[in-house]
């Protein structure tokens, strides 16, 4: 086994990404979907930082990931508010059954 | 050309339709009476035609012996680049083959209008479409120009589609679309043959040779140019293929096994009056088309394929009866019995003998009246009970004695009991069929039909009208005066033609004899 390098981190982020996607696709519960999104965001962050670390690009990657973290926080806040409203309207938060716009 | 009675009889319903168009929305009764008036005028005109009809004129092959002929140039497009001049005539006339059909469609339309009285949904639209259908049917039976025939044939599809699709039962959309597509499928074959015939044959008008749709000209071997695709001199089998195409087109309408599956669905879903029209008139258009178009234009192919036509006739008889025996839905049973009865028509046509073809045409007429009665009978209990399951009834005879009496007449007419019209036509078909060496074996097999027919009819009679009375239906009333008015004329015709069949046979006798002679001798 080689020395831990860029590839290892990338693989980790790939796994995390896939798991996140899986959660987004499969779960019905809106909060679970959100968790999947967080996983995806995290895996992206890992990528940014890993590249910036191994690519010797200085600090820029970290800044991007910082932005992502902040946006994630904002996203989580808004999304949870939406989920709460959904719950008020439907008394459940199953995303596949929320299809009023379709009809 | 004197009084344009055929134009009148064809377009009176259209006039009625326009009149209805100008009525206000709420005036349902006015709409109904307008439609009734239109069909009544049509019926009166048809009866006048019957009286004015000359028995000695044959028609069929000779334009001069057609009666009530009207002929006018309809569409003329001069000098189309590679086709030449296109000429389509408005050419109508009646002979022994069609006179009974004209009367039948006027008669059945009138009865169907009466039975439409309790259509409550979109009355105006219903009767407008109904009258359009009526006009188109009449047009098919009087056209002597292939193009005109085809136009009427297609026009008829449209109102039928809506009448089933809007006023039908639970699966109306399915039935309507099935009917429409199936028939349209057949029409394509007819269209192909029509165009092929058009380019193969010519007619001399004012000294100029023009391609023609004229059905009478097309029966003449001399009309075909040697190079035409359907020319008798063409060594290829194109004429055979064209014949089969045409036959398939008409067979779907008959409907002939294995093209019959649209019929039960359409019947079951259609409202009662539309079933009456469908079984009473529309099915006849298939066999009429074969007699009017396929037979005289391709007599040599007809002779060659007669056995197969008879074979399909017998299959229809036996198959329809067997399937009918297994039905639990009253209307479906009647629908299959129609298939069985149309088999007799095919068998009769296949004999190419005077008795057989007379029997076939007479059977067309009788089936029209008898099946109209049968569907009205189904309509009566469906109106009251809103179900058609054979097993759900029982013992209605005591509750509705007059109705049961009518049912007995209609059922026994369908079985072919002597004294009622069905017997004569079936017997003539059998006489003709056995007399012809081509169809002798087929006829022997076909005889099974009279046994099977009796079996399913009597069994149905027993299940619905005899046995223990089901208290569930104790609210059911006997016939209303309007229903009397529907049944009594039909019953009178059925009984009268059973006792005095000569009345109907005289109308077609001259024509049929000429026709049969031509079919058996024409050298193409």
């Amino acid at each position, binding site marked *: *086994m080689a020395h831990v390098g860029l590839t*290892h981190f990338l693989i980790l982020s790939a796994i995390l990404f896939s798991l996140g996607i899986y959660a987004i696709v499969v779960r019905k*519960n809106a909060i679970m979907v959100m*968790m999947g999104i967080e996983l995806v965001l995290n895996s992206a*962050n890992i990528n940014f930082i890993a590249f910036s670390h191994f690519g010797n690009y200085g600090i820029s990657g970290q800044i991007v990931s910082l932005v992502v973290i*902040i946006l994630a926080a904002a996203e989580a*806040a808004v999304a949870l*508010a939406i989920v709460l409203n959904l719950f008020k309207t439907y008394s459940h938060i199953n995303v596949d059954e929320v299809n009023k716009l379709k009809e | 050309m004197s009084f344009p009675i055929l134009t009148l009889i064809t377009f009176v319903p259209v006039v009625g339709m326009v009149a209805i168009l100008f009525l206000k929305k709420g005036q349902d009764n006015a709409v109904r009476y307008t439609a009734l008036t239109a069909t009544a005028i049509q019926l009166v005109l048809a009866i006048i035609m019957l009286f004015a009809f000359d028995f000695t004129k044959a028609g069929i092959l000779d334009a001069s012996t057609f009666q009530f002929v009207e002929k006018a140039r309809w569409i003329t497009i001069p000098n189309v680049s590679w086709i030449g001049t296109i000429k389509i005539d408005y050419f109508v006339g009646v002979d022994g083959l069609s006179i009974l059909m004209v009367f039948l469609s006027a008669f059945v339309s009138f009865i169907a209008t009466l039975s439409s009285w309790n259509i409550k949904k979109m009355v105006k639209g219903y009767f407008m479409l109904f009258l359009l259908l009526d006009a188109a049917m009449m047009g098919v039976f009087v056209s002597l120009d292939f193009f005109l025939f085809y136009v009427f044939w297609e026009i008829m599809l449209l109102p039928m589609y809506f009448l089933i699709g809007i006023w039908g039962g639970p699966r109306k959309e399915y039935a309507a679309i099935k009917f429409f597509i199936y028939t349209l499928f057949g029409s394509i074959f007819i269209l192909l043959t029509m165009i092929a015939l058009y380019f193969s044959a010519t007619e001399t008008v004012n000294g100029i040779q023009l391609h023609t749709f004229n059905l009478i000209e097309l029966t003449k071997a001399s009309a075909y140019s040697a190079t035409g695709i359907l020319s008798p001199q063409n060594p290829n089998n194109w004429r055979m293929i064209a014949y089969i195409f045409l036959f398939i087109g008409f067979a779907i309408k008959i409907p002939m096994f294995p093209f019959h599956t649209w019929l039960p669905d359409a019947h079951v879903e259609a409202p009662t009056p539309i079933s009456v029209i469908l079984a009473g008139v529309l099915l006849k258009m298939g066999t009429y088309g074969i007699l009017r178009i396929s037979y005289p234009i391709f007599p040599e192919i007809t002779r060659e394929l007669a056995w197969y036509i008879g074979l399909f006739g017998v299959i229809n008889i036996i198959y329809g009866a067997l399937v009918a025996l297994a039905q639990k839905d009253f209307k479906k049973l009647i629908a299959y019995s129609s298939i069985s009865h149309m088999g007799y028509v095919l068998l009769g046509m296949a004999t190419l003998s005077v008795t057989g073809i007379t029997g076939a045409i007479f059977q067309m007429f009788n089936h029209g009246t008898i099946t109209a009665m049968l569907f009205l009978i189904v309509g009566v209990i469906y109106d009251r009970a809103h179900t058609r399951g054979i097993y759900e009834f029982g013992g209605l005879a005591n509750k509705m004695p007059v109705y049961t009496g009518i049912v007995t007449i209609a059922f026994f007419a369908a079985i072919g009991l002597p004294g009622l019209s069905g017997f004569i036509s079936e017997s003539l078909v059998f006489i003709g069929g056995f007399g012809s060496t081509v169809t002798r074996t087929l006829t022997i097999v076909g005889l099974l039909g009279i046994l099977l027919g009796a079996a399913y009819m009597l069994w149905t009679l027993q299940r619905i009208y005899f046995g223990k009375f089901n208290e569930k239906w104790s609210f059911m009333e006997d016939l209303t005066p309007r229903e009397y008015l529907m049944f009594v004329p039909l019953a009178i015709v059925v009984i009268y033609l059973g006792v005095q069949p000569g009345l109907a046979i005289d109308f077609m006798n001259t024509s049929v004899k000429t026709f049969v002679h031509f079919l058996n001798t024409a050298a193409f």
Partner: protein
Amino acid sequence: MELYDIIFYLVALMVVVSAAIVVGSKNIVRAAYSLLFTFLGVAGIYILLGADFIGVTQLMVYVGGILILLLFGIMLTNKVYSVDIRRENAYIIPSIVIVGIFAAFLIFVMTETNWVTADPTFPNTTVFELGKTLLVHYSIIFEILAIVLLIALIGAATLARNDNKER
């Protein structure tokens, strides 16, 4: 094998396992708690990558903020605490297959690509560098982020408020 490697593998294992639990757990609360470990592990990864500030931020924002928010969401939206939430869509099998294939491709690409890398450097602290870069080079982004965050918070508050608009 160096200590660095060992730590990486341990942390990576924790991340993957806990993330898998998040994804596959029947119980939403358990999923949320597993997510905590995922976030912790990711923070560890950041630190391993020499991004100590980001790691700490990750801990604070994710673990301290988002996760708590999520837990609030769970508490507020599930009538019964331990309700069985495993009510997936019908296409779980195709999803596993597709995502599996996707992951395989992803890993394949990651491993096969010939990345241009330099020797990594480990600065003592990144906070100073970050602060400087943020306020010098990316100041507009910084401001915009602040506004976005503000708007998001106000919006979230407005949305989540138990309003009686229809009075």
